[in-house]
């Protein structure tokens, strides 16, 4: 608990106001392209806020996924809408006649006021000091196999959350693939700047992903940050015009996609057969098992995120034999 001194107070007020203002601009600005760019700026300010709140792990994930990848997905979707020449509704407010309808329009604002009042009351009525589960995490950190408490929670204490989450990601990609079949994008040839950027940055991003994976044992980093960095490399390659070859798209891509979830299932079964709970590792093997799980998860997350950006099934466009 710290009461705010002046410099902190100025910083926190500016950040807080900035967040609310950018969010409002992203939701209210009339042009969608502007709204998306402001939303990316909002994500970057969120990342700064995470650092301020001592959550560097989240800041890394936010920069790569929240601001970077979500922004790229939104821009790509907007480009496809424009290319398909759909009628993008210019005004978000449709004028309606009739007094009853106009009165109903005020209803959401009133509802929001009530919800806001309830939430503010709940936040203010919370006890000022609460250790949550941090005491339990601290007490068991020694047997978790890693030194970073966030990694210990993600991969050991609440490993089943991460197991399910990896399946959510895979499910999202399967959903995107099954709804695919969008008109093929015309890929403009990459200019020299983009080409050079992709050539230079891709190896750096892969190295950075490996570093995040390894660093997650002791400090900020881990499978999600590493996977997101790999995903970013995939997005960059796609923007530069690279497409997976038919063999890679049909077999290897799918194998890597399921490698992470499959490893998780195998380790979970292994722990049960060894007479423990689901994903309860023996302390002497915990470090190795976590690194193994994280390596598989990194590859799968990276390719899943890149696949979400790609949109269509990777082997579409090649001759299908079925």
């Amino acid at each position: 608990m710290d009461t705010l001194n002046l410099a902190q107070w100025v910083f926190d007020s500016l950040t807080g106001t900035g967040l609310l203002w950018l969010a409002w601009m992203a939701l209210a600005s009339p042009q969608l392209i502007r709204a998306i760019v402001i939303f990316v700026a909002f994500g970057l300010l969120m990342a700064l806020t995470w650092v301020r709140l001592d959550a560097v792990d989240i800041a890394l994930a936010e920069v790569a996924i929240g601001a970077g990848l979500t922004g790229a997905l939104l821009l790509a979707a907007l480009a496809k809408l424009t290319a398909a020449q759909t009628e993008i509704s210019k005004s978000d407010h449709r004028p309606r006649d009739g007094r009853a309808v106009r009165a109903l329009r005020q209803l959401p604002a009133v509802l929001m006021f009530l919800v806001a009042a309830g939430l503010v009351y709940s936040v203010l009525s919370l006890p000022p000091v609460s250790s949550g589960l941090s005491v339990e995490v601290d007490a068991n950190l020694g047997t978790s196999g890693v030194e970073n408490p966030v990694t210990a929670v993600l991969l050991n204490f609440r490993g089943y959350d991460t197991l399910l989450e990896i399946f959510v990601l895979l499910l999202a990609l399967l959903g995107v693939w099954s709804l695919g079949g969008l008109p093929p994008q015309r890929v403009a040839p990459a200019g020299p700047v983009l080409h050079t950027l992709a050539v230079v940055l891709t190896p750096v991003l892969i190295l950075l992903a490996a570093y995040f994976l390894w660093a997650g044992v002791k400090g900020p980093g881990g499978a999600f940050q590493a996977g997101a960095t790999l995903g970013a490399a995939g997005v960059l390659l796609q923007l530069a015009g690279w497409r997976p070859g038919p063999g890679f798209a049909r077999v290897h891509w799918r194998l890597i996609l399921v490698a992470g979830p499959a490893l998780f299932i195998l380790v979970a079964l292994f722990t049960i057969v060894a007479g423990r709970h689901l994903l309860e590792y023996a302390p002497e093997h915990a470090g190795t098992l976590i690194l193994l799980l994280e390596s598989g998860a990194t590859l799968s997350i990276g390719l899943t995120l890149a696949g979400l950006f790609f949109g269509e099934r990777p082997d579409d466009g090649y001759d299908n034999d079925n």
Partner: protein
Amino acid sequence: MTTETLYALVGVGLFILGLYALFVRANLLRKILAANVMSSGVFLVLVALARRTGTVAPDPVPHAMVITGIVVAVSVTAFALILMLRIAMKTGQTELPDTWSE
């Protein structure tokens, strides 16, 4: 007011802004943006309140939940965008038909 309370209240504000936009905006892309702003608000409340441990180190459990949440949010966004594109291909519109204007 403490730092924790300040940021938790900003989180509440973001959630409300997003929820309001989700109700009143017709454009589907805007609704997806609104849902993302809402989730950022929820994350901010969680992480701000995780600092109330009374020690230097914040509670790592909400942090892990938020990292999970960020990944789930991007999955949902990607799926929602594809749904929106399919609707746009089929109807030529980026909003859902208005059922009570007729």
